[in-house]
């Protein structure tokens, strides 16, 4: 008998809550004029209700939007680079990006090309390379950056080191000559350096390239300064993306305004570099001063686009300050006392390794836990 009752109950339960739909247009609610075609229309096509836990709304930002905006801000920088180095710049960038995309497509998760992160890696890697590098090397670097810099860790969000910089570190270790051969600025935008076209696995040995020292190289090995205005505009020797300081700053400011990068990181890096080099310059005037250190080499590109890579930088704001100051100090140390002219890449990679630790120690205390502890004591 009890089974019978439950059955009946259940039947009614199904039936009754539906009643408003069946009787729509006839209830007392109708008295207020809610009936008519509107109600009937609703009734005929009662929408299917959709269930999900709260929150039910979402901010318009998304990871692909962030990534593609970063790509968009790279376009003017690429343009300037092409202006200075000719078509070679585009070829090198395309090769590095192609390498990155190909590996992402074949070994990465399905559809992961759409998030835009592989394009960023490829372009950023390309921007750290000299314009005359053989294209196959750039391609290999892009492939390495994604394969060993990102996918091997588990894909997007999992890597410890900035993939583009890891790719560059690999190239620098494998092909030190090609990575430090800085061709002279192009005379026309159609310029293609002969060394670009070296056959795969061959060095561009036989091709003659007119080279030009980088400002950092001049400073380090020949104790020769470079005009600051030239540095700011970018018509000096160097890798593709390290020659347009002001433009990089403008693009970075836009990204920071959109909250697509943490402004604390570049500000911390610049402040640390400026303060440290100014101090050293004051102690020993033969060392270069703060303006030169800020504008030369890959500092701008590194501070704005590499160090701020969300995946490989701290999540806390305090951590971001520490991270940036660390990069700034190490950069100056490498530049002045290391065997290399440039130190941005290694300083960022080094600080990347510290990020998990920095995050751990800078995690804010949970709301009210300090008060609770104080009371317990």
């Amino acid at each position: 008998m009890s089974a019978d009752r439950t059955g009946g109950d259940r039947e009614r339960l199904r039936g009754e809550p539906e009643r408003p739909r069946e009787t729509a247009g006839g209830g007392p609610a109708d008295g207020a004029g809610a009936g008519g075609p509107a109600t009937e229309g609703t009734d005929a096509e009662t929408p299917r209700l959709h269930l999900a836990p709260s929150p039910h709304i979402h901010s318009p930002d998304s990871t692909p939007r962030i990534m593609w905006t970063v790509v968009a801000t790279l376009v003017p920088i690429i343009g300037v680079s092409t202006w200075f180095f000719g078509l070679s710049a585009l070829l090198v960038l395309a090769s590095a990006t192609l390498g990155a995309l190909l590996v992402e497509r074949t070994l990465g998760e399905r559809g992961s090309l759409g998030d835009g992160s592989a394009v960023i890696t490829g372009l950023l890697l390309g921007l750290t390379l000299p314009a005359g590098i053989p294209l196959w090397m750039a391609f290999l670097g892009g492939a390495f950056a994604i394969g060993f810099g990102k996918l091997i860790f588990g894909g997007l969000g999992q890597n410890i080191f900035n993939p583009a910089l890891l790719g560059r570190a690999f190239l620098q270790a494998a092909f030190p000559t090609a990575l430090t051969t800085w061709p002279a600025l192009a005379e026309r935008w159609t310029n293609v350096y002969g060394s670009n076209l070296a056959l795969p696995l061959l060095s561009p040995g036989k091709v003659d390239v007119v080279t030009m020292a980088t400002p950092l190289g001049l400073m380090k090995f020949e104790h020769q300064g470079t005009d600051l205005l030239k540095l700011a505009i970018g018509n000096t020797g160097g890798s593709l993306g390290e020659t347009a300081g002001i433009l990089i700053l403008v693009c970075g400011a836009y990204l920071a305004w959109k909250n697509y990068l943490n402004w604390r990181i570049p500000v911390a890096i610049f402040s640390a570099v400026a303060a440290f080099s100014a101090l050293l310059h004051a102690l020993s005037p033969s060392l270069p001063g703060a303006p030169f250190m800020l504008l030369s080499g890959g500092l701008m590109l590194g501070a704005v686009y590499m160090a701020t890579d969300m995946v490989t930088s701290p999540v806390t704001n305090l951590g971001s300050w520490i991270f940036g100051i660390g990069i700034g100090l190490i950069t100056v140390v490498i530049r002045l006392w290391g065997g290399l002219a440039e130190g941005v890449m290694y300083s960022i990679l080094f600080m990347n390794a510290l990020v998990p630790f920095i995050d751990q120690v800078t995690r804010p205390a949970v709301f009210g836990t300090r008060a609770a502890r104080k009371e317990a004591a």
Partner: protein
Amino acid sequence: MGSFRHGVHPPELKELTSSLPIRRMPFPELLAIPLRQHAGAPARALVKRGDRVERGDKVGQAVGFISSSVHASAAGTVRDVRLWPHPDGSMAETVVIDVDPVSPQGLRPRIVPEWAGLTPEQVVAAIQDAGVVGLGGAAFPAHVKLAPPPDTHVDVIVANGAECEPYLTSDHRTMVEYPERVHFGLRIMMHALGVDRAIIGVEANKPDAIEALRSTVPEDLDIQIEGLRVKYPQGAEKMMLESLLGRRVPSGKLPMHVGAVVQNVGSIAAIAEVFETGYPLIERIVTVTGPGIRRPANLIVPVGTRIADVLEFCGGMTPDAERIVFGGPMMGNAQPEPGAPVLKGTTGIVVLTGEAIARERELACIRCGRCLEACPVFLDPADLGRLARAGRYDEMLEMHLSDCMLCGSCSYVCPSHIPLSQMFGLAKSMTRKVERRRKEEEPSAAGAAA
């Protein structure tokens, strides 16, 4: 202007209803009045099938102190007392009433006693008997906050008029249209608590409410009205106390611990109303809004009215409506069943369309840190999310999962659309037992240490 750290800025979307005066909805033909509409023990049914009830009759008796009574919102006949779809998604014991179509639903002798001359204890008892609960959503019985344990010292009442959830305007309209009621409710609460100071916190996007309240403060009461920065979740108790008083509630403690009682302005007005009219809490102001409803409104709805009846009164849903939410879109519950009733704690019915709720594909966490910047209680949602994915709930508790109030800010900002808050809700319900046991152990441990 008072504020707290972190938080998010969802679109306010209040213009749909913020200037619409409160209207009364006609009585529906059927009421489904659940015996559990509040935090704490469900009420015990006092009626049975076939009983005749008048408007305001008690149909469920509070069981114990942390419980509240429920009443018939209209005269009619009890069809049955049985399981019925509850807005929380479950089936709950419910008094189902066929509303008498010819009854005038008019006034009858007062049920709630006159306020004048009552002792604090009598006020507390009357409020419990009148079934007043927090109308801000959580539905915590209102009288409990008025009877703090003897070892706590309360010196201020904070009236929460933030209404920080997008879309909702019921508190806003209450403050604009019934500011005296808010003050009267505060007077009663101050009397019950023996407190002589109150602050009303209102988000600055409601200047008309601030003005209405300021211009009606009774001369003999110390009531201060403060504007608050428009930021979500400004209306969370702990944020409110931080914003208005700079008092930080210790983790795991209640506002009482820092000498304050926080009550939502709607509930305060309800306390005033029950003493004013003599009727228990049988109706409430509900904001019916969202892109999926044809005629948004601020309505006085009898408690127990089914969702479908309310929506029908508001012109019905648009064809692209996809989700019915009780409460605001940040913390509200999606409703599976249009036959489920409006409760005392239902601040609004927000009908969202596919466009409003569109979620993009979930991607990997890119460690952007926005969730950390959003979390008002300084948790690390990204890390908690990783633990939740792996089912490592114990470790989540160590990372203070219990301090998470499920405000949804982290999910709202996550650019990878990771359902953080949603996973935390699940983790919290999975670990509730563990937590309870830990809490039971804690006082004894503290006692041993002392």
